[in-house]
């Protein structure tokens, strides 16, 4: 097919769509703002719920980009995306213009900036980290406090930046609960004698094997789950973190001093997602892009030729993102075939 598609964002969604399109003889230009492709999973070491090496997934995804129909342009951040006639144009800061028959937003998500929840002390206390920081630490298989000690007690706080009207995010980020279970297990494998606690509002274990992993974390690893939202963290004399929550099931306020506090940061729309959606009138709630419909039109937008894939629409897990990307490819091909 003599058609070209512009894919903005070189994360899993972008790569998977690009490859699916390339297989159908569509020319693809994939533009990534960073130096490397693969997006957020670059920061992840292992994936839930099967502890697969993220590296493996990255390798598979990167290889897909070797397809001759795919052109990858990195270090280029698109600031302007607009249609003209039947064509789509994208511009970066240097006024470099890309042109194609259709465009796909695969601009993905950013993790919530935990500094906005000041009461939890991220960026203020040394021993408060985010789930993303944990993942980086885990690459070296060393989870240590700022002082270099092995934590004897660690707490994971769920719903940081998700389900929180105060920061304007009413939605559930879907991935943090199971991620906390995964990280708690990883930690317990490294430090079997330590205590791991997980504070939750609801444990949402809706994916396949999630419930099993949750159960395993309790049964095999002795992770303790406490139903209560932590609302305050303070530092102690020895630089540990004292957190306050209510153990709602015993209806008692509680406090706990931990060596390391991990904030399970939620998913937020990336700046690029919000910017480009707004330019094209497809901005939905919370800065995410808005698909045409929830069912068969989930990859389309009100703009003909503009498609969406992955977490630029809403929080999704990695398998969901990849499936969504392939479904976007189908819609794009259908569009390319019916338009001149």
């Amino acid at each position, binding site marked *: 097919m003599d058609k070209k598609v512009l894919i903005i964002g070189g994360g899993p969604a972008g790569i998977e769509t690009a490859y699916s399109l390339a297989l159908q003889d569509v020319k693809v230009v994939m533009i990534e703002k960073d130096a490397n492709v693969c997006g957020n999973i670059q920061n992840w070491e292992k994936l839930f719920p099967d502890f697969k090496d993220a590296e493996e997934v990255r390798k598979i995804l990167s290889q897909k980009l070797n397809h001759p129909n795919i052109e990858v342009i990195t270090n280029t951040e698109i600031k302007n995306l607009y249609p003209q006639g039947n064509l789509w144009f994208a511009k970066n800061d240097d006024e470099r213009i890309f042109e194609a028959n259709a465009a796909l937003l695969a601009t993905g998500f950013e993790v919530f900036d935990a500094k906005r929840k000041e*009461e939890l002390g991220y960026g203020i206390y040394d021993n408060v980290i985010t789930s993303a920081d944990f993942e980086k630490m885990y690459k070296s298989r060393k989870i240590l406090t700022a002082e270099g000690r092995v934590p004897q007690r660690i707490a994971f706080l769920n*719903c940081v930046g998700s*389900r*929180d*009207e*105060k920061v304007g995010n009413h939605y559930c980020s879907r991935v943090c609960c199971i991620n906390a279970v995964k990280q708690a297990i990883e930690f317990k494998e490294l430090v079997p004698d330590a205590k791991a606690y997980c504070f939750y*509002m*609801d444990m949402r274990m809706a994916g396949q094997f999630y419930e099993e992993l949750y159960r395993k974390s309790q049964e095999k690893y002795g992770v303790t789950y406490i*139903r*209560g*939202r*932590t*609302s*305050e963290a303070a530092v102690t004399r020895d630089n540990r973190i004292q957190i*306050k*929550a*209510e*153990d*709602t099931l015993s*209806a*008692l*306020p*509680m406090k706990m001093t931990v060596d390391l506090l991990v904030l399970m940061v939620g998913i937020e729309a990336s700046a690029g997602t919000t910017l480009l959606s707004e330019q094209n009138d497809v901005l939905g709630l919370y800065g995410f892009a808005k698909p045409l419909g929830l069912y068969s039109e989930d990859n389309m937008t009100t703009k003909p030729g503009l498609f969406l894939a992955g977490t630029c629409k809403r929080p999704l897990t990695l398998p969901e993102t990849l499936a969504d990307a392939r479904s976007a490819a189908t819609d794009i091909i259908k569009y390319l075939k019916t338009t001149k």
Partner: protein
Amino acid sequence: MKNWGFKISKPRVLDFDTANLDAYNRLIEKVPSAHRCLMCGACTATCTANLHTTFNFRNCHLMFRRGQFEGLAEELDKCMLCGKCKLVCPRGVNTRAIIYNLRIVLSDLNYKKIEL
């Protein structure tokens, strides 16, 4: 009155058929956001009064919602209305207004005698 040496034990069951569940509607009229509470306990966790005594706002709210008023007014007296709880609520519930209005509704319900 005879001294029986014992009293009929109060049932500990939450009886939704006989409990006064309507009083909660009066609170909702004043503070519609109370509906949104998901009982996460963040309010109780941050409570200033909890530095000195056990005061569980979430549980007070829940007990009121369930029509269990006994001892509630005395419990609510522990609150200093400082409003920290309102700031940490993830559901944007006006916790402070709940306490303030609970005091009024409870005193209307005669669970608290006003001595003057």
